[in-house]
């Protein structure tokens, strides 16, 4: 686990892991006009890893993923996906990627199986020694739970069915790397569970490398082997959910009563605080409760501050907590 200090800190990107790295990013910067959306982002993703890019809205998650997909030009930095700079990726490189897009009303007149079969054709001729492309469309529809709707026009699908189709389109070419930007927005609970199963199967059975963005910590915890927290244009924490919890959640909440009066105090050193409490009040202290803040609480505080405009303060506090 690595937690970043200031902007120039050497981050989670481990150049030593280059041989196994499917995605590697270093010093990535993106500037729109005079606004720095990404301010030196570094990370690597290993083959078969599920990486969750977590952060409040406007943190630069979508920008990052779109640069990796080759849909957006970066301002500075080194980026490689499957060993190729996405800015110069050719069609063979493109065949190795899967992008799950949020459908809206495109291909409304097409039938589900018709569109999947059509898009599958583009991947013929891009098989490798170990990967047969494209996927069988019948099996694919079974996998995402669309078999019953194979003959339906896409314009008539429900929101949840549409999102299943989006996922199916993303994996029809049996990609080595799969990008998912806010994948479960608009999913009902059942679709969400199915989707989580699918992500795990893709990563475990087919060794697919998956990069997903989300602003939902619970989802990142469920799906991702590793979580990167992006805020203020840089990565402020990097590790598994467990590691992040231990690292980030250093603040504790102490509750106690003095006579009939209730007290609450937040502190970084609960032990010392409680010791002082007893020294001062001795027997008068009652109902003592010490609770360490969860990762979620710490993250939510950061998000709240971030969204109410105290961006710099939010990032700084989060980073302090994380050290």
């Amino acid at each position: 686990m690595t937690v970043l200090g200031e902007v120039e800190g050497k981050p989670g990107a481990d150049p030593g892991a280059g041989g196994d790295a499917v995605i590697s990013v270093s010093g990535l910067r993106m500037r729109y006009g005079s606004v720095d959306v990404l301010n030196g982002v570094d990370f690597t993703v290993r083959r078969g890893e599920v990486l969750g890019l977590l952060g409040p809205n406007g943190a630069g998650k979508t920008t990052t993923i779109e640069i990796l997909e080759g849909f957006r030009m970066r301002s500075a930095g080194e980026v490689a996906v499957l060993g190729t700079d996405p800015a110069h990726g050719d069609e063979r490189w493109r065949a190795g990627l899967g992008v799950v897009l949020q459908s809206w009303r495109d291909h409304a007149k097409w039938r589900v199986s018709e569109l999947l079969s059509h898009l599958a054709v583009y991947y013929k001729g891009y098989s490798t020694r170990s990967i047969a492309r494209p996927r069988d469309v019948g099996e694919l529809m079974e996998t995402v739970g669309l078999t019953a709707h194979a003959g339906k026009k896409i314009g008539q699908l429900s929101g949840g069915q549409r999102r299943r189709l989006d996922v199916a389109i993303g994996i029809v070419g049996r990609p080595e790397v799969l990008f998912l930007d806010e994948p479960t927005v608009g999913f009902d609970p059942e679709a969400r569970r199915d989707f989580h199963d699918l992500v795990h199967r893709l990563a475990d059975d087919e060794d697919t490398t998956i990069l997903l963005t989300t602003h939902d910590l619970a989802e990142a915890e469920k799906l991702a082997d590793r979580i990167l927290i992006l805020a203020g244009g840089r990565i402020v924490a990097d590790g598994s959910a467990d590691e992040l919890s231990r690292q980030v959640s250093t603040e504790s909440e102490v509750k106690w009563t003095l006579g009939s009066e209730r007290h609450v105090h937040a502190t970084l050193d609960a032990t010392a605080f409680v010791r002082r409490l007893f020294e001062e009040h001795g027997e008068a202290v009652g109902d003592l409760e010490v609770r360490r803040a969860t990762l979620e609480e710490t993250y939510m505080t950061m998000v709240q501050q971030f969204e109410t405009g105290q961006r710099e303060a939010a990032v700084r506090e989060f980073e302090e907590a994380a050290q």
Partner: protein
Amino acid sequence: MTPLSAGLRAGLARGAIECRQTLTNSQDLMGYVFPSLVFLVVMYLMRDRTVEGTDFSMGAMVLPSVLGMTVMFAGLMTVAQLLIVEREDGTLLRAKAVPNGMQGYLVGKIVTVSGMTVVSMLIILVPGLFMFDGLALGSVGAWATLAWVMVVGLAATMPLGAIIGSLFSSPRQIGLVMFPMMGLIGISGIFYPIGDMPDWLQWIAQVFPMYWLGLGMRSAMLPEALAAVEIGASWRHLETLGVLGVWAVVGVIVAPMVLRRMARRESGSSVQARKLKAMQRVN
């Protein structure tokens, strides 16, 4: 099968699927039939007027001119419109996300719009043939002329449509292109013989594909003698090929540059932003 030809073949298949969809969809069918009906009524009302200096029906002369106009509309307006709509709704982005997808998309669009053009022309041509006598479509040569004028016309206008479709960002702005198109129809000898126009207007009309498409179609379908009322008293095939060819060559050079620039900017967030904007329009 090499990947590249897979992209081409996918494009052809895509065009075939979209042609079938447009012909089995009542909304689209209305879109073909309604304007054609209007033109047929106009021609019918003009059937008893004659072309000056002949006893040839004015309505019969307008028929091929309208077919030429149809090609221009399909190549320019339909392509522009489809491109704008399919950029807004994310169709284009999906094409961008698959290997050779843009190539497949473009080939598909060419096939689809060509198919739509043929259908639109037939809907006017078939009833028109019953409506008027004296159309000279009995020879293979006439049909061959009709075919090459259509193909060269589409080649001249589709890249223009692609350029316009790339430059405008919202389906609403396409209305801005309608006005100059209407003006062009007015001066290009579609409903009135161009010879009645002032000289300078004739020159302007002859710069654009519309006039030449109308002339080409007239040359295919009207008796030889009718050439006498045209500019230069000739069907001017060479000039037709020349002007349409120049538009096609310029278009084929410029359109890919504009298309590439437009496609480069497409991403999930740009589609998302347009979606939000469109939702606001609806609400």
